[in-house]
Structures are given as C-alpha cells and as structure tokens.
C-alpha cells in the first residue's frame, strides 16, 4: 500500500477477486451497518410505535381542529362572507347551509360532538347543538333562520357565530392560547380575565416546587449516600435495604402514610401536643398544602437521588482524601476541595432524575397538595379524564415538554451534560 502511494501510479488496489478495495470495503461496511440495524430493529420499531408515535400524535392534537369543517362543511363556506363586526347574526344562506349540514351530522351523530368541542370556547353552545339535533328532522323547507331561532335564540347570538367562524380552520391556536391564560378577543390576542387565569401560575408553581424538592433531596440524600459508600459492607448493606424498601412499596401506600403522619389529628401533631411543644388549638397544618407536597414527594423521590450519588461516591478513591489530609488540609477543606467536586457528576445525575420525575408527578400532589400544592399535571389529568378536552391537555403537555427540554439545555450549558454520571 505504501509502495503504491509512493510510486504515484494510478494502480487501483484490488482485492484478490479483482474488485477495487474501496468498493469492497464500502460493501463490507454497509453489510455491517445493515446487520447492526437489523439487530436493533425490534427495539427501534418498538420505541417508534409505542413511544414516539403516540407522543407525536398527542402533540399534534394541540393544534388539530378539523372537526368544525368536517361536521359543518357548507356552513363554513357560507360563513366566509359573514362579517362578525356587522353586529348581526348571519343571513338565511348560512342557516340553510347549517340545516343541510346538521341533517347529515345528526344522521352520523356527530353534531353533539361538535357541540362539546365548541363549548370549550363558548359555554352554552353544546346544548344549542343537542337541542337543534333533536328537532332538525321536523323542520320545514324555507326560512331556516327563523326556525333555528325558534329552537333556541342562541342561534341569533353574534358571539356564538364568531366562535364557529373563528374555529373553522383545521389548525387552531386556541388550545395554546388557553394554556397560557390568553384568548382571542375582538381586537387580537388578550389575557383572560383575572378570575380565570390559572395555568401560568401552575406552571411556575410546578417548576418552583420541583426545584425545592430536588434541593431537599440533595440535602437529605447526600449524607445517606456518603454513609452507604463509606461504612463497612455489612452495615451499608443494611442501610441500602432501608433505602430500597420504601422504593419497592406502593406509591399510594407511602402517600397515605404521610397523611396519617402529617394531618392535624395525626401522629406528629399528637406527639408535639403530648410533649407540650404546641397546644391543642395550635396544631400545625402540614398537609393539604405546599408543605405536604414537598415532604411527601421528597420522600418518594429520595432513592432516585441516593442511588446515583452512591454509585459515584463508591468510585472515589479514599487515597485522594488521605493525600489531601497528609498535606495538611483540614477536614472541611478536604471535603469541599477534594471530595465534593468529585461527587458533582452524581449530584447532576440525581438532580436531573428527580427534577424531571417531579415535574410530571400527579397522584401525590393530588392527594396531599390541597389547593396550594397541586401541579400542572393535575390539570392535564383533569382535561384528559374528566373534561375530555384533549386538545388543551395536549397543549399543556407540549408546553411542559418544551420547558423540560429548555431547562435541560440550560443545565447542559451551565453544568455540562458530560459531567453527569450514573456510576
């Protein structure tokens, strides 16, 4: 090979069967890659089907809004010529189109579904569709506007028609606006009235509480991980079991246990009253508020902090500490300048785990959070399972996902993701 390069001739290197070496190599590599791909194919397919696609589908729901144009195709077209600023309900042509669309929709039973969708943006509209659906078969030909108005004068409301017109496009920003406490008013986007703003407050609270939980996990977990890594094996094994035992216990059991401990007639308050630290009237309120959420969630997430910390501490050679001390460092200097910097990757890994788990937690805040300790995930759960407003839930979820990614990016910038070590 060196000979060929030196001589500078144009001889193409070939393998023994006469093919050029480059081609042959590329082929071999391609085969290798293909084999590798085949090996990971089952996992890739599994992740694609069960993880990426559902998430993408859910995220898409936050802007998807085909239902209006699908259910009322003619009405949507007819509405194009109507100007909400006129201050009057649309004319006969729109109502005639509405009548045709409703006839089809009632046969397919999609009119009430549309009603529920519109009701998220305009309270009261769902009964309009329900009522009209029942009477549409009995309508006579001609003067549809009056007939619809006879069913319910809601059909004469400019507001209702504005909502239908505004939600006609197949892509909407209404869910995202709602999830940042805004709406589209007469003159563009405006904030919702004060008594309806909730989501921004909840986003901020979720992040702040998750940070508080992460910090308290570090403070409580660090000494325990240190003990685990440095005690003799027999003692540390026992300690490890104590750390893992609650980890294997049902989440609900642990949360309920905290209720028993923390409530006003609970164990902790009873003890405090009994030893005379507080009097019976002044029992502490430690649950159904922010404190309850922080305490219970710190306890539940603690193992996720201890385990990465422990595995990192285990790899720190004791000779570092001995070397520092032999050179005259005090205990504190040794810890702060030598030991602690070595554990930072573990703190990083633990913090990311705890923070990301905390930000999406829902059952514990629901049970012990009262009103001041609930998270944004509680509202997402409500919209998924009770109000069926999946579009809004998807928008809230998307924002939460973006927030987590943004924080991850900031973290990478400040600490560096290479500095994270799970062991």
């Amino acid at each position: 090979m060196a000979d060929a390069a030196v001589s500078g001739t144009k001889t193409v290197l070939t393998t023994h069967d006469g093919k050029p070496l480059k081609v042959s190599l590329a082929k071999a590599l391609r085969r290798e890659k293909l084999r590798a791909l085949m090996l990971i194919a089952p996992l890739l397919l599994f992740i694609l089907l069960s993880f990426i696609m559902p998430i993408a589908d859910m995220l898409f729901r936050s802007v998807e809004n085909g239902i209006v144009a699908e259910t009322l195709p003619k009405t949507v077209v007819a509405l194009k010529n109507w100007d909400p600023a006129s201050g009057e309900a649309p004319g006969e042509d729109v109502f005639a189109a509405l009548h045709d669309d409703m006839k089809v929709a009632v046969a397919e039973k999609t009119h009430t579904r549309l009603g529920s969708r519109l009701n998220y943006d305009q309270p009261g509209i769902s009964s309009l569709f329900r009522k009209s659906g029942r009477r549409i078969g009995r309508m006579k030909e001609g003067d549809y506007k009056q007939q619809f108005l006879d069913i319910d004068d809601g059909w004469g409301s400019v507001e209702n028609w504005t909502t239908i017109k505004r939600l006609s496009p197949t892509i909407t920003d209404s869910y995202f606006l709602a999830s940042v406490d805004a709406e589209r008013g007469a003159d563009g986007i405006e904030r919702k009235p004060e008594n309806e703003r909730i989501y921004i407050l909840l986003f901020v609270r979720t992040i702040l509480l998750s940070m508080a939980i992460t910090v308290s996990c570090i403070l409580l977990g660090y000494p325990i991980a240190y003990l685990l890594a440095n005690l003799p094996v027999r003692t540390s094994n026992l300690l490890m079991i104590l750390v893992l035992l609650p980890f294997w216990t049902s989440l609900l059991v642990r949360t309920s246990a905290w209720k028993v401990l923390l409530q006003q007639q609970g164990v902790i308050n009873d003890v405090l009253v009994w030893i005379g630290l507080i009097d019976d009237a002044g029992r502490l309120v430690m649950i159904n508020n922010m404190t309850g959420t922080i305490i219970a969630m710190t306890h539940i997430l603690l193992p996720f902090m201890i385990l990465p910390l422990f595995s990192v501490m285990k790899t720190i050679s004791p000779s570092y500490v001995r070397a520092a001390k032999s050179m005259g460092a005090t205990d504190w200097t040794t810890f702060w300048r030598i030991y602690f910097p070595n554990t930072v990757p573990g703190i990083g890994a633990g913090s990311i785990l705890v923070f990301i788990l905390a930000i999406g937690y829902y059952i514990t805040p629901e049970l012990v959070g009262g009103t001041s300790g609930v998270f944004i995930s509680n509202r997402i759960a409500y919209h998924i399972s009770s109000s069926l407003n999946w579009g809004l839930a998807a928008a809230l979820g998307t924002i939460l996902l973006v927030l987590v990614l943004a924080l991850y990016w900031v973290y990478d910038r400040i600490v560096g993701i290479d500095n994270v070590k799970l062991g």
Partner: protein
Amino acid sequence: MAGLYCPVCNPKGENYMKLKTILMSTAAAGLMLGGTSVAVNSASHGMAPCEGCTDSLTVVSWGGAYQNSQVKAYSEPYAEATGVKFVWDESSNEAVAKLRAMNEAGNVTWDLVDVVASDAIRLCDEGLAMEIDADNDLADAPDGTKASEDFGDLMVSGCFVPQIVYSTTFGYRTDVADWGGKKPESICDVFDLENFPGKRSLEKRPINNMEWALICDGVAKDEVYDVLATPEGVQKALDKLGTIKDSVVWWSAGAETPQLLADGEVVMGSTYNGRLFSVIEEQKQPVAMLWDAQVFDLDGWIVPAGLPADRLARVKHFLKYATDTQRLADQAKYISYGPARKSSAPLVGKHAELGIDMAPHMPTDPNNAKNTFLYNYEWWADNRDDLDAKFQAWLAQ
C-alpha cells in the same frame, strides 16, 4: 326554564318537577309497602335463552362496596343461571376518557359500563355510547308497566339506563365539644363558622358547592341556575365559599370525607350518602347525616357504541335481567342507594348483613328528603368547563 336532557319526556319540559315528584312518590311507596313482598324473588327467574351470545362479559364499575352490591344483586345470580363468566374492571372513574381512547383505537374491550348520569350524557354526545330502546331492550315492570314509564324521567339520556338514585350530602361528627351541644340542621350551618367552628371537607369541583353557596346566600332554590349563569352570580357563590375557604379540606375521592370524619380531621363534610351510611352503620363512628339540601344524582349503565353482534346480544340479555324490578330492589340490600325504578321501591327490604331496614337510609325517604336539590344536567353540561376554570383559579389564589 332549562329542562333536563330527556328524549323520553314530554316536550313541554316540566321535567324538574316531574322528576322530583317521581322520586318522592317512589320513596313514599317504599315506606308504605316496605318489606311486604319478599317472596317475588324466584318469580322472574325464567330467563329467555340467549341465542348467538358470547359466554363472557366485561363489566366496568367503581370497585368497593358499590361494585360488590352489583356483583351480589346482578352478576352472581345471572352467572348461576347462565354460566356466563364475568370480568370486572374498576375503571368507572376514568371511563369516559378510556372509552374515547378505545374508540379511537378501534378496539372497545368493554361490554357494559357503569357511569354517573353526567358522564353518560357526555358519552352519548360524543357518540361513544349506544342509544337504548327502553321498551324493547329493558324488562317491563311485574304489573306490565313499560320500562320507559317505570324509569320515567330518570332516563336523562337516550343512552343511559339508570340503576340507582344517590345523593351528595353532609355528614357531621356528633361529639364536637366546641359546638356546645348544638347540632347542624340546615345546609347553611356549613357556612356558619361562629356556631359550628372546625374544618369542613368539600369536593374539589364547582358542582354542588356553588349551588349550596348561593342557597345560603339567600338565592331561592329555583333561581340558583339563573343566578349562576351570570358572572356576578358566580362571584357571589365564590365569595360565599370564600367565607369558609380557610377552614375547608378539599377532597377528590369519595372515600376521603368518611376517613377525615372518622379521624376527627374535619367536623363535617360532603360525600355520597352510601359512604356515610357505611361510616355510621357499619363502622359505628360518631357521625350523623345532615340530609338538608342533599343533591340527587343518578348512576347507571351505558353500552359502548359499535360492539360486535355476539357481544351485543349478551350485553342486552344481561342488561334486561340486571335492570328488572327485582334486581334493582335487591341491590338496595347491600348499599343505601335508592332503586331507579318506581316498581322496585316497594320491594326494598333489609340490609343483607346488618339486618336493618334500608328504607329510612335511602336518600329518597320522605324524612330525609324534606329539602332536596336537583342537579341540572343540561346546565352543567353547558357550563362545567367554564365554571371549573373559574373555580380552580379561585382555589389556587
């Protein structure tokens, strides 16, 4: 006047009064004839054979004592007679969301689902539940009355077969020293921190709380929803709730209030009457029922839309059996909820284990139902999302 959504009702729409009258007359009949006819049990056992049916049924319910009452009253005798295998899924709490997901995935695995009336209306609206033809699909009363008439206005949605009438009401502890021997008698005592100090537990949602607040703020019962439809009315209700906000523990699961009452963590709290019955009669806690301004609600079956023919045939066969007059009356032996059929009321007897008369524990009993409030399904279907946003924002402040 906003009526209930009720396709089988008269078009004039005086459903409220009618529903109330029916509930009351049901209860009265139950009281007069209570325990007279116990031997009807075996009479209606002659079931028609089920042609081309599956031999298993997946039924969704709430779990706990309620599901147990259904197992005892409906599925065990049915399984004995037909050999059908029952699979119970305790998912009623999230039935609406799960059914929608199953429907989108094109694979509905449930055959019969137990839901509250407001969820049934939602499922019917979404096209997720099947319309039911009461007179053909359900059994007539023993005296030949058609099912649609026997259930009457309780069939609040074309997809809904009601089973029971339950109520959300207050329970209070009977041993509170601070009250100086007084006992709460009116719903407004819940808002009276002076005479009845201590914590209360209320449900973490606007429904019922807003109505109670307005009633205690001097709004007449039949004007509650008109007032609540205005922004000022909403504010008025929230302001009234605001007077006790600092003393309220908010619950989201029905089991919480009974536990809080038993622990002495609250002195009074709202929950479903059957839960309070179990605290008072089964666990013998020092708790009593307030009953004043109890809010009636309904619970019943829906059949998911789009079931294959063999499964549908089995569901219909079971549904006809499980909602007949005797079966509904049997359920009241295990739980203190009133049967939804008029003809079942006279058959309500004693509790299966405790042996106490169940009629006085029914929410529809005249002594308990002196002052009741009817939940307006249609109004809440329209305003639930809007009011919930306001209520949650108010809570978070």
